[in-house]
C-alpha cells in the first residue's frame, strides 16, 4: 500500500477537510489503489520532454489599464460580491475571531 492512514490524515489536514477515523480507514486503501495505478507513468521515458504548459498555444493578453475595463469584472460591485456571503458585516466578509 503506497499511502497509510497517517499520510491520509496529513493530506486531509493540508486540504482543510475534517475526516473521521472511519473515513480515514476507507480512504487510505482507495487512495493507495489509485496511486498504485498511476505509478505506471514512471515507465515512460520523459528525459527529453518538457512538461506541457499550454494545451493550445496562446499568448497572454493584458487588459487596458483603465478602471472598469469590463463592467462585469470591474469595481464598485461590493454589494454583489457580498450577496452570497454566509456572513457579511459593515460591507465586509465576516469570519470567526482570528486574533485573541
Amino acid at each position, binding site marked *: 500500500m503506497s499511502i497509510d492512514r497517517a499520510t491520509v490524515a496529513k493530506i486531509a489536514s493540508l486540504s482543510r477537510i*475534517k475526516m473521521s477515523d472511519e473515513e480515514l480507514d476507507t480512504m487510505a486503501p482507495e487512495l493507495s489503489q489509485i496511486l498504485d495505478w498511476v505509478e505506471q507513468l514512471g515507465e515512460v521515458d520523459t528525459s527529453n520532454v518538457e512538461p506541457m504548459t499550454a494545451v493550445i498555444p496562446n499568448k497572454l493578453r493584458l487588459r487596458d489599464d483603465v478602471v472598469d475595463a469590463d463592467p462585469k469584472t470591474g469595481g464598485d460591485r461590493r454589494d454583489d460580491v457580498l450577496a452570497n456571503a454566509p456572513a457579511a458585516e459593515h460591507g465586509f466578509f465576516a469570519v470567526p475571531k482570528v486574533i485573541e
Partner: protein
Amino acid sequence: MTDLTTLGIKAIRDGVKAGDFTAREVAEGFNANVAAAEALNAFIVATPDHALSAADAIDAKRAKGEELGAMGGVPIGMKDLFATKGVQTTAASHILEGFTPEYESTVSQNLWDAGAGMLGKLNLDQFAMGSSNETSYFGNVTSPWRRPDGANTPMSPGGSSGGSSTAVSARLAPAATGTDTGGSIRQPAAFTGITGVKPTYGRCSRWGVVAFASSLDQAGPMAQDVTDCAIMLGAMAGFDPKDTTSLDMPVPDWEGALSDGLSGKKVGIPREYRMDGMDAEIEASWDRGKEMLRDAGAEIVDISLPHTKYALPAYYIIAPAEASSNLARYDGVRYGLRDLPDGAGLQDMYAETRAAGFGDEVKRRILIGTYVLSAGFYDAYYNQAQKVRALVAQDFEKAWAQCDIILAPTTPSASFGLGEKDDDPIGMYLNDVFAVPASLAGLPAMSVPCGVNSEGLPLGLQLVGKAFDEQGVMNAGLAIENRAGFTQRAEKWW
C-alpha cells in the same frame, strides 16, 4: 399537429421563424415534459418562467419582423455548472447549495443573446467529477433507457453531463449545454443515443463555469443530431477577454459548411485503442463506422498513438491536481455553505465546512491532488504527468501527417446499471479511456450514435480532429449519422 417536443433545434428555429408555431407553444410543451419527468431527476431546478419569457420575447420580435437569432425560440437545458444570474447554481454540490450568482456565464449569455431560453438547471456529477451521474448531492440521474429484461434496473445516463444527456434523450429539452473535462460530454452522449461535441480547448469561454480542471474544461452542445450541435456550438463559442485561454479567432459558420462527403479525407484508426478484452459489440460498431466513412468517400488508414495507455493515469494526476487548487476557494467565507460549530475558530470552520459540503468522490480527488502536488512528490507525479501529456499531444501531431480525422469508440461499453460500478473507482475511471487522450491534447472531438447493442442500449462513435477543425469532426459525424440510420428512442416509462 406534430408534437413539438420531438423537434430539435433546427426544426424549432425554422418553424418559429416561418410561423408554423409560436416559441411560446414550444416552451409550454417542453415545460410540461420537464414537469412530468421527475422520476428521471434530470433537473435540479426547473425555470419554466425563464423559458416562457424568452419565448414571448422571440414571438414579439417576430411580430415586429426582427431577426430572431441562431437559436431563436429554442428552449434549452443548462448544466448546473454554468453561473446563471438570479438562478441557483450548485455544481450538484451541497457546498454551493443556495448559491445565486449575481452574474451570467459568458456561454449562457451568448445562448440567450442568440434567442434561446432556459428550461432549468440540469443535474450532473458533483463538480463534474464522475462518469455515471451518481455523485450528485441532489441524487442520481436515471437514463430514460432500460434493458429489455423486464427488471427495470435504473441505468446510468453517463457523466458528468448526465442530466443533459437524459434531458435531450427523453425529449425534456431539444438540446442542452454540457462540459467536458475528460469525456463528460461524449460519454453521456454515447450512453443515451444523442450527439455531443467537445470543441477545441478555448473555443467556448470558461468564464462563469464552475472550475474543475481549468486546463481541460471545455463547454459544448448536446443535442439530437450533428446539425443541431453545429448550430448550438456556433451560438456558444466566441472570443471572451474575460477568459485568458479563450481563442481569439472568428467563429466559423459550422452549420452552413456541413457536408457529409469525405472524398480526399483520410480517417485514422489508432491501433492502441483496440484493447485486450475489448467488448465485441463495441469493436463491431467501430468496424461499421469505418465502413460508413469509407462509403462517404474517405480513405481508412492505420495509425499509432503510442502513449494512449498512459493518458488516463496522467489525467488522474493532472485533473485532481487542478481540482484541489480550484476547489480551495470553497472556504465558507465568500459564498456557499458555512459550518461553524459553537466556539470554533477559522481553521475549524474551513475543515468542517469542506467536510460537510463535499461528497466522497470530490474529497477523494482533492486529496489525490493535494498529495501529488505536495513537497517531495511534485516532480514524480505532477511534472511527470505533464510530460506524458506533452507526449500524448505529440502522438496526435504525428498522426496528423497521415490522416485528417480519427475514428474510435466513444466508450469501452454501453451504459450500465446505477450502482453496478460503485465500489471500483478505477473501473469507473476506465469509462473515459477513449475520451481522455483528446482532452489532454485540447482537440475537438464528438460522439455520434451509431446503433444499439444486443441489449437495446445505444452505442456511440467518437471522432477526433485537428485543433480548430470542428468542421472536419462534425462533417465526419454527419457522414456516420446519415448512414447509421439511428432512430431508436427510449420507450417512455417515466
